[in-house]
């Protein structure tokens, strides 16, 4: 497996005045292989979206680097960098209601990328847009309509067509299904996996629905307060979590199975995710961790491989 996207000690901080810094993404090293789906999970405020946006250059990096096919990408993108990389890396956004311009028609929205980044002529652009509308399960006749005429699931399909029409190699899906109903979620997930197969896409799939992430992903990465706490094969992480935080996160996820739920002890964790402003030394999970030790409050655990290199955990227990 060759690495398509690699982040090396990638950090993104936001200065919020008076020497206050939000450590949104802190020192994350993650490799995403070609044609792989990596699921990224964590609570809100853990930095999942910021990580995704920093990887594709929507945020300038504070430190560390991102490599794409071995090439080190610029620290902050200039217009020319966006121009060059937009056809390789794309993003699908969470909220299909606010991520489409209400004053543009569907045709204009989907065609915009092609107009900016390809040399196709007007009629060719139009036929490509028509082709993609059909491909994502809409009709060519929808081109002249506006976003408000579509349901949430249909809008998410429009968002997918917009991101994929340039045939990128790497796509960040930022909670693509969390705004949708269960029956529609499956439609969108099946569409994504079908397109992933035919186009040979590599995906970073950000979500908080753990069951869906396990279903979709090859590997799963768990984030807590800006840093990675566990990485491994999706099934292994889900069924045999090593990090206490992963264990709690998965234990809190209610399963649609009443018998299982009755037999399962409650694993509700005390407290809430602390503020990522000026984080203290030591393990960030220490103050909520049921297995906390003295060392955890002093020394920051590094992400280290367990028996096989595929499974990495950042915890002093290992």
């Amino acid at each position, binding site marked *: 497996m060759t690495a398509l996207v690699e982040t090396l000690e990638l950090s993104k901080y936001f200065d919020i005045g008076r020497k206050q810094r939000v450590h949104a993404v802190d020192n994350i090293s993650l490799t995403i292989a070609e044609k792989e789906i990596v699921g990224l999970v964590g609570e809100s405020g853990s930095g999942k979206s910021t990580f995704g946006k920093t990887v594709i250059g929507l945020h300038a990096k504070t430190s560390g680097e991102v490599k794409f096919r071995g090439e080190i990408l610029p620290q902050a993108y200039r217009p020319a960098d966006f121009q060059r990389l937009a056809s390789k890396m794309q993003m699908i956004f969470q909220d299909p209601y606010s991520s489409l311009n209400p004053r543009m028609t569907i045709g204009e929205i989907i065609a915009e990328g092609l107009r900016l980044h390809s040399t196709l002529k007007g009629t060719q652009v139009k036929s490509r847009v028509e082709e993609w509308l059909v491909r994502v399960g809409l009709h060519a006749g929808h081109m002249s309509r506006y976003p408000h005429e579509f349901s949430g699931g249909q809008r998410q399909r429009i968002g997918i067509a917009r991101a994929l029409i340039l045939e990128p190699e790497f796509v960040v899906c930022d909670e693509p299904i969390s705004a949708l109903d*269960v029956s529609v979620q499956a439609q969108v997930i099946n569409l994504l996996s079908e397109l992933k197969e035919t186009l040979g896409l590599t995906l970073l799939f950000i979500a908080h629905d753990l069951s869906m992430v396990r279903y979709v992903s090859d590997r799963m990465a768990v984030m807590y307060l800006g840093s990675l706490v566990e990485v491994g094969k999706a099934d292994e992480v*889900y069924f045999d979590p090593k990090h206490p935080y992963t264990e709690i996160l998965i234990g809190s*996820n209610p399963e*649609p199975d009443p018998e299982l739920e009755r037999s399962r002890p409650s694993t509700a964790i005390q407290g809430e995710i602390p503020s990522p402003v000026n984080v203290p030394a030591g393990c960030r999970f220490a103050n909520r961790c049921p297995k906390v030790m003295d060392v955890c409050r002093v020394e920051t655990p590094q992400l280290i491989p367990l028996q096989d290199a595929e499974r990495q955990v950042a915890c002093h227990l290992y």
Partner: protein
Amino acid sequence: MTTAATDLQHTHSLLEVEDLAVEFSTYGGIVQAVRGVSFAVERGKTMAIVGESGCGKSVTVQAMMGLIPMPPGRITSGSARLNGVEILGRNIINGKDIRGSQIGMIFQDPMTSLNPTMTIGDQIAEPLQVHRGYSHKRAFAEAIELLSITKIPEAAKRARQYPFEFSGGMLQRAMIAMAIACKPSILIADEPTTALDVTIQAQILDLLQDLQKETGMAIILITHDLGVVARMADDVAVMYAGKVVEHGGVDDIFYRSAHPYTLGLKLAMPTNDPSKQHKLNPIQGSPPDLFAPPIGCGYCPRCPYSMKICDVKDPDILPVEEMHESRCWLQHPQAITVPDELYCGEKA
């Protein structure tokens, strides 16, 4: 189930809703949001109402609580009886407001449901002053007590803070404290954890279960998350296009699904049981437009088992087995071919 048995069971229910229908006048025409909903809630039990956005689950409980703005809303038929007393359309019974004193309610978004200009303590004290006639001082002391019951640390200090100083999970606890202040016999929770992370969701669900054990209150839990249903519910009503399509015990709904929609929802979700691995089967299409509700079954255009009759005539809710009903023609005693995956009781 015989009529006598039904009657007997109904006289014992805490809340009985029958044939409730609600519509709204809009610029686009009249939306029939709820089209004849019936269910019963038992004392001390949790009843979950499940369904997609727009299926009418929130409107159903808002109608019961008198929270529908009229106009544009209108309750066109139905009744809701709490302990045998009709509550639809009247908020004051025996000089007492039902809302807040007998039925408490918590909402999906605690951020927008609380008054940003009042302290948390004052907001929790308010129902006690209104319904119980407590003095402010006594009500405020009780509010602090309620905050500690809902496991908010440093309750006395927190009671003097404003909503913006609370996190989402803490606000939902404060909402629960307010809703249970007058010890209601029913707590309605409308998507109480949808805006929260799974870890905080687990805390809130645990809290609701603990409170139910202590006070014996019934809970009506509105949600679209089948995981939450499996975790919390005793009984479940599945709603689709303004109607209850299946109704039964939680195990009936999950293990003996008797309506194609319930089955469809289950197949559309990933399971985490490695032995029951399956590919996701989405329900194709989208729910019907309730401006012009279909004459036949609302689920018919999306249903893989639809028959000719489904399109022209809406089925009644038919018994599957005791305490388990489904609004589907396939449950009709004379239905000829019934798919294996659909549960049909012990009928021959």
